[in-house]
């Protein structure tokens, strides 16, 4: 399919900074040709959604211009976007569950005479449109009774009913089963053949390769590449998405490996991993409350070590065992399935995978935040299924959540109060029925010192700290609980090089003390820098487990993309 030579959407130098200081879009330009299917891809936080919401008038850019069919336009509201022929299907449905499908479709553009709705007339019009596209919709059903796929069809019909010629879809397949996604793409193809231009967001490369004409890659708020789909290949797109990460304490590029890699300069081979010493000394939780502190993590530069032996935690029972795990997402479709994994004491297992492959649900199932539908999670041979989060914390699991602002910290609380969260019944931390404020203050001050948190003391309010120091509080809390197993979700996301290195040192130090870490990261360099073994998730399943010594970035990347 040759794209017709008319640029229908042109966005130039779009910049958007949110009030909280996050630069979501940084000088992004994007051109979409009429009658094509165009994908915008990138990792979480790359700025895809923001860009689409700017196009639809939901957000206003700080800078930049938008042209539709060659004419400069200012799109100040969705109403204006609609009148310009744009339609949008949001990631989370904007259909109102309590209304009928018909009412949702006509809302704001009602078919009415003297203000009185002509529902029959509207239904006929929609049915005609639907028939042309081969779509079936229960127009009179309450929207909340529909499946996600059906809701999406309704959203598309809503846009088309308003005469949309350009359709924006924000991660349309994120919540669909594969067959449903196929049906969606068939619908999009028939829309395309009737002249509609389609712009959709995804991070699934397979969809890009199979269903688009062109693709724009975003990373960190910038556009880093625009390709004609048939002139590119998944590995190139993945490389663009992940970027050549230079930040972080990863070891230098081995020239040999770089030269032999097919996309030299994109993938870097790292040094073999260090050897974690066996946990011969008493495990942290077995020691007294005052002596168990992890101490100051080593200040020395991380020196790459040799040999790739696994920690010799020779216990017959692995510390963590996950058996045939099935976890459902909120839509009750599988987010994690047939997943199995074992983690030994003193082992760091990195979980790699494209964003949204089920990492969050897997982590939450272990911690106890998501219910386990089928299968088992065992800690040291004890079944965790059904146990409360509190109980699991007591058993030695600690959690570093992905979003430190929403899940990790209460920003209005002090550092010391944040450290107490989840351990408020533990007297060693100053908890109990009545808070032991003195002990809590001591804990706060000590943690501030030991973890080198840039703050006046434990009574500093968490919200006033920088991102890196906030993350140190989250990590300190996880480590202070004498954990046996740390579930770390993207522990260095948004941190600078120094803070990242600090986190790595803390993890390595914990490993030498026999602590196991399940490390979820979207950053392959991070996975490679820390892991003893690397497990790859694809579509909620385990695509493979590789010992660090034998793993290459290419292979892990391939598993991430193709399963």
């Amino acid at each position, binding site marked *: 399919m040759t794209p017709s030579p008319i640029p229908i959407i042109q966005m130039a130098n779009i910049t958007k900074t949110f*009030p909280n200081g996050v630069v979501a879009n940084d000088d992004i330009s994007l051109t979409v040709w009429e009658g094509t299917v165009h994908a915008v891809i990138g990792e979480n936080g790359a700025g895809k959604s923001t860009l689409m919401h700017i196009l639809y008038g939901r957000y206003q850019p700080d800078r930049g211009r938008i042209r539709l069919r060659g004419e400069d336009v200012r799109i100040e509201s969705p109403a204006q976007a609609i009148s310009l022929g744009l339609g949008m299907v949001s990631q989370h449905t904007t259909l109102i569950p309590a209304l009928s499908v018909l009412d949702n479709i006509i*809302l*704001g553009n009602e078919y009415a005479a003297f203000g*009185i*709705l002509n529902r029959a007339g509207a239904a006929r019009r929609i049915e005609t449109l639907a028939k042309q596209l081969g779509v079936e919709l229960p127009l009179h059903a309450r929207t909340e009774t529909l499946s996600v796929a059906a809701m999406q069809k309704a959203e598309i019909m809503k846009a088309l009913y308003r005469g949309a010629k350009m359709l924006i879809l924000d991660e349309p397949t994120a919540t669909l089963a594969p067959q449903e996604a196929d049906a969606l793409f068939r619908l999009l193809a028939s829309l395309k053949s009737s002249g509609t231009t389609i712009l959709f967001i995804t991070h699934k490369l397979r969809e890009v390769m199979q269903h688009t004409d062109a693709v724009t890659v975003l990373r960190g708020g910038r556009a880093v590449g625009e390709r004609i789909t048939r002139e590119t290949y998944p590995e190139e797109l993945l490389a663009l998405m992940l970027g050549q990460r230079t930040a972080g304490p990863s070891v230098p590029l081995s020239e040999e490996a770089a030269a032999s890699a097919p996309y030299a300069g994109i993938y870097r081979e790292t040094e073999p991993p260090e050897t974690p010493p066996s946990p011969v000394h008493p495990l942290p939780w077995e020691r007294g409350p005052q002596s168990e502190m992890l101490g100051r993590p080593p200040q020395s530069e991380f020196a790459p070590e040799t040999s790739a032996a696994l920690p010799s935690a020779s216990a017959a029972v692995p510390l963590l065992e996950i058996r045939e795990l099935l976890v459902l997402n909120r839509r009750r479709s599988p987010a994690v399935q047939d997943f199995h994994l074992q983690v030994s004491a003193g082992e760091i297992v990195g979980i790699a995978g494209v964003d949204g492959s089920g990492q969050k649900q897997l982590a939450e199932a272990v911690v106890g935040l998501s219910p386990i539908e089928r299968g088992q999670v065992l800690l040291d041979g004890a079944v965790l299924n059904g146990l409360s989060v509190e109980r699991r914390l007591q058993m030695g699991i600690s959690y570093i959540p992905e979003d430190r602002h929403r899940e990790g910290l209460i920003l209005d609380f002090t550092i010391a109060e944040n450290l107490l969260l989840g351990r408020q019944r533990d007297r060693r931390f100053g908890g109990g029925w009545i808070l032991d404020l003195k002990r809590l203050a001591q804990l706060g001050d000590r943690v501030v010192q030991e973890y080198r948190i840039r703050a006046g003391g434990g009574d500093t309010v968490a919200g006033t700290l920088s991102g890196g120091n906030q993350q140190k509080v989250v990590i300190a809390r996880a480590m202070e609980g004498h954990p046996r197993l740390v579930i770390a979700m993207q522990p260095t996301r948004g941190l600078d090089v120094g803070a990242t290195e600090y986190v790595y040192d803390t993890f390595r130090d914990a490993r030498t003390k026999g602590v196991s870490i399940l490390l979820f990261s979207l950053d392959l360099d991070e996975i490679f820098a820390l892991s003893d073994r690397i497990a790859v998730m694809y579509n909620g399943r385990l695509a493979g487990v590789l010992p660090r010594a034998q793993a290459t970035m290419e292979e892990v990347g391939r598993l991430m993309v193709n399963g």
Partner: protein
Amino acid sequence: MESEGISAIVVPLILLTLRQTTPLVLAGLGGIFSERVGVVNIALEGMMLIGGFVGIWVGQSAGVLAGALAAILSGALTGSLHLFMTQRLKMDHIISGVAINLLALNGTTYLLRKLYVMAEPIRDASVPTTIPVGYFIALTLSLPFLAHFVLYKTAFGLRLRAVGESAESVRMAGLTPIRLRTAGLLISGMLGGLAGAYLALSQVGRFSDDMVSGRGFIALAAVVCGRWTPLGAALAALIFGFFDALQLQLQGVVNIPSQFLLMVPYVFTILAALVLRPTPPAALGREEETEG
């Protein structure tokens, strides 16, 4: 003989029921138009008080119909105040409602003394003629159907209901949520003011301290029991009105403490909440998400 005896009891009871139901239906519909656009409205009580006071005040010099009109306008103004506090100042809806109720109660009590310079009893805050109760009963019997039609059969009503479910969806559909909320609150206030006008200008022809005495809250209970629908709320109001009338009729006749019958609406509401599990509009009382 026998049938005469029954009708001697039943007919006054029916009439009294209608009289007691009227303010509940009017205010209840007011509650629906506010809550259906997503604004919690416990300010109905205050709207009725202000409406009643203004109705009498204007009614004394300009006639009772002008008084009723003024009451409606005062309700719209009170509704605007609630709108301003909840939408512009992002104040909690309950707190704004309580503030309006306290303002209305103490303000009217104060003004009654100030304007009518008198102690006991409050004779002069009255109008010489009253609006026939029949007018209001006619409204009570017809307005629920009209409100039902507006909410479910017109484009305007669809939009009002939509904004109470999700302002964000409404915005994405190309509409302006705040305009719809303004419309809902103005209608709500007008109905609340009208309910107050009924109490002051029609039922007794006089304004006295705290004369609404909780009817605004009972009306809100009717809204909840009626699942936020005009016809359902009207039915609930009718049931409450009936028990209120029964309570009045039985006073001195039967030995049930009147307080028990006064509790009926609230007991009924709790039962309805248990049995019907009414779901409020999804965006009720919630602040709209803004950019970022």
